């Protein structure tokens, strides 16, 4: 059993379990799954600066911050305690393309060190991948009113066509970055 837990889980195990989080949160506390809101709550709690959008009773949403704290704890248990492979088993075609197009050589870890090492903050890569990338995630999810959990999983599960529009937007942006902007960057 432990051996099974230690290995990476296939999509047909992980996907349905992620899907079950939606009814679990509804049944346990009448809460809709959505994670990007936690970023707003942190801003409202720490730097509201009199901004109307950040002036609300964020304390009523503490459950969301506790859920996110749990995710971090889950990351520790899933990666450090249960163990992990050194190299993520992505397809050979992706490895080939990332080597050729992005000049990556180190495929160990969750994120490529050549792009995400903190030392990179001394050059353009760190500012584009760490700072600009993170900024776009925080800005875009709030502007769209949700991220992959709130729109793709929670929203589409509840047959919200608006969430379908959001997901098309997610993919349009992702494809433009991967296929058009990446070749310009490297």
């Amino acid at each position: 059993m432990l051996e099974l837990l230690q290995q990476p889980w296939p999509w047909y195990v992980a996907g349905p379990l992620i899907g079950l989080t939606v009814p679990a949160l509804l049944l346990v506390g009448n809460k809709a799954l959505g994670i990007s809101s936690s970023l707003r709550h942190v801003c409202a709690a720490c730097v509201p600066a009199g901004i109307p959008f950040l002036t609300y009773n964020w304390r009523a949403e503490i459950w969301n911050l506790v859920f996110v704290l749990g995710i971090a704890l889950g990351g520790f248990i899933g990666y450090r305690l249960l163990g992990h492979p050194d190299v993520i088993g992505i397809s050979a075609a992706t490895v080939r393309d990332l080597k050729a197009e992005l000049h990556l050589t180190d495929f160990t870890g969750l994120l490529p060190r050549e792009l995400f090492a903190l030392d990179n903050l001394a050059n353009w890569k760190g500012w584009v991948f760490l700072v600009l990338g993170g900024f776009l995630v925080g800005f875009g999810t709030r502007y769209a009113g949700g991220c992959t959990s709130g729109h793709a999983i929670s929203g589409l599960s509840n047959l919200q066509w608006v969430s379908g529009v959001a997901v098309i937007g997610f993919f349009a942006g992702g494809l433009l970055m991967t296929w058009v902007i990446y070749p310009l960057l490297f």
Partner: protein
Amino acid sequence: MKYFKYLVLGTLFGIILTKSEVISWFRIQEMFRFQAFHMYGVIGSAILVGMISIQLIKRNRLKSMDGEPIVLTDKKFNHGIWIGGFIFGLGWALTGACPGPLFAQLGSGVGSAAVLILAALAGTWTYSALREKLPY
């Protein structure tokens, strides 16, 4: 103590995100390059199971543990949905992370996740400050 259940659910969610490797930048690149079914399988089966669950909850008019009727609000359209979605998509392909995975990465000990989260907070704050001036 009333929040303990959310800590448990969040922890389980974080373990699943980590063990399925969807918190890896490499997996997200593989998805945007259409070179494996993995991410599509995870997201697709999650939506399918979520959809069936919500239908069961609605049809049986289930109540939450506190005895409240379960209410799901409808999402309203505005132009921010696709404009913001597109902006997030650009960031998703750069960082390989949605907000949830960022926290799982942090817990797994990836130092750069702390920078990414701070940058995401700066993005959310900037959006909040500019909100009245943005198109909808």
